[in-house]
């Protein structure tokens, strides 16, 4: 008996058995990704009754509330914080990623491991470490008191600066790793060719290196910007309640204020922002010849 022919190219259509095996995956995605997203959208069109129960319906009232200056300001602040965080991560992280990718293999492996460890370290632990440094009786103020005994302790914790520091600290490895991957793919011969044609490092960077590593930059920027907009844990711990961001407001609507429909509308707005960022990222992806 000859065995039935195997799919030689990865173009086979699944048989009954394969569909059966695919079913759990499809069911999981449908039930826990697609349906919840639709429910979020549906919920945002509803209202709440006086007990905080969701009354399903079709009203755009929650979206009208989003335009309230209070919430617009919070939205803008969240975007601003996330943009600042992303910019700082890029400035700080790009040279590191570049150096990593161009280092000798042995050094590179070690450096990569050194970047991976904070990447995998609990962000709560890392945020908590900054609380210990920034608080009034913390290390930074102890240092200040030692250098400048006349100064009063600085109020560093629970400020916007503390929040941005914490966000940069949390997300820096998320930027370094994708940029590293794209610099590593960079063809060294292109840089040498530019050098041979007389371009110094200050010329090669903006004209050759930067455009070729744009996909890595775009990936890193999304990996930092998107979660930074929505983060509420870091902002809670380092910003206290003083600098609420969009994530804090959503969390509050769902767990304290119990206005789910409004929280859902905020969530849908965030989802829209996320989808737009994904489209931008896709547009920046290299096509054809430039692919490493």
């Amino acid at each position, binding site marked *: 008996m000859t065995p039935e022919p*195997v799919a*030689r190219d990865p173009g086979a259509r699944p048989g009954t058995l394969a569909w059966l095996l695919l079913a759990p995956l499809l069911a999981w995605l449908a039930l826990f990704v697609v349906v919840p997203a639709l429910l979020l959208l549906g919920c945002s069109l509803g209202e709440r009754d006086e007990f905080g129960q969701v009354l399903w319906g079709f009203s755009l009232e929650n979206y009208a509330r989003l335009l309230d200056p209070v919430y617009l300001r919070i939205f803008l602040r969240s975007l601003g914080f996330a943009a600042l965080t992303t910019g700082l991560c890029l400035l700080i992280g790009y040279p590191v990623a570049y150096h990593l990718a161009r280092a000798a293999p042995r050094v590179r492996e070690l450096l990569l491991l050194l970047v991976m460890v904070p990447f995998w370290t609990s962000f709560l632990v890392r945020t908590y470490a900054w609380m210990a440094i920034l608080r009034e009786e913390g290390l930074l103020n102890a240092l200040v008191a030692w250098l400048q005994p006349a100064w009063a302790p600085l109020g560093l914790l629970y400020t916007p600066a503390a929040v941005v520091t914490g966000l940069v600290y949390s997300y820096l490895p998320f930027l370094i790793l994708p940029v590293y991957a794209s610099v590593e793919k960079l063809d060294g011969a292109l840089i040498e060719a530019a050098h041979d044609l007389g371009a110094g490092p200050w010329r090669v960077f903006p004209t050759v290196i930067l455009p070729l590593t744009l996909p890595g930059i775009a990936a890193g920027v999304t990996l930092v910007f998107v979660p930074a907009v929505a983060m509420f844990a870091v902002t809670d711990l380092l910003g206290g309640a003083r600098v609420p961001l969009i994530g804090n407001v959503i969390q509050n609507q769902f767990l304290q204020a119990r206005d789910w429909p409004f929280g859902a509308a905020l969530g849908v707005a965030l989802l829209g922002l996320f989808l737009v960022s994904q489209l931008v990222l896709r547009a920046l992806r290299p096509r054809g010849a430039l692919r490493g």
Partner: protein
Amino acid sequence: MAAPPPSLLSPAAGSRLLQAGLRGWTGLVLLFLYLPVIVLAVYSFNSARLGVAWEGFSGRWYAELLHQAPLQRAALNSLVVATATTLLSVVLGTSGAWLLHRYRFPGRDLIESLVNLPMVMPEILLGISLLILFALAGVGLGFITVIIGHVTFSFPFVLVAVRARLQGLDPALEEAARDLGATPWGAFRHVILPALRPAILAGGLMAFLLSWDELIVTYFTTSAASATLPLKVFGLAKVGLNPVLNALSALFLLVTLAGVAFAAYLRRGAR
């Protein structure tokens, strides 16, 4: 073309200078990344409650951890959730990777996008949308709902890791097995699966660490009884600093270091 502008430095000297600058900068950034957590770990051995002054080496905060029943309970919960998440993610991720790699069918691209979504979507959106689903379906929050949430964002990481490995695999391997008379399942079980082992292990480890550390999705999908360690730590840290938390954080760091070392070891084995 115009001649390059005259420069004070020759390109070679400029390169050297740039190189030194990059090396120094990388060192500084690594210092920035490590100093806070190292300080935290060192201070967890300070016998003083919270002061900056060093009052002597002591393991008392670690001993104190042994008397913190709620934290131990939370740690156990985390272990249960992370283990269940890892097992489910490995099954779902590996089978999904294999089927998506092997077959072409309508809607396949859509499924791939859907798989990627939970990896990149802000966690808070996953959390609130699952909360609405569970509320509407009348499912009480607890271990099951937390595990569902965790599997949803974890299994894509396994799938991607296994998929990358599959793409590097010679398709002739499976053909040879089939030509020698193996059933499709036999070929998968004895030829493909062993070749995928490093990727499955790496993906599983990733799923475990992601689940172990997850706060946001858990925050929206848990009950008090199934609260995980990150949730408890978050609650405590919101109140303020706590020397027991220093000790706990140091232990967390240790677990992470072990995980990363294990992953590095796996990668070496895969080569």
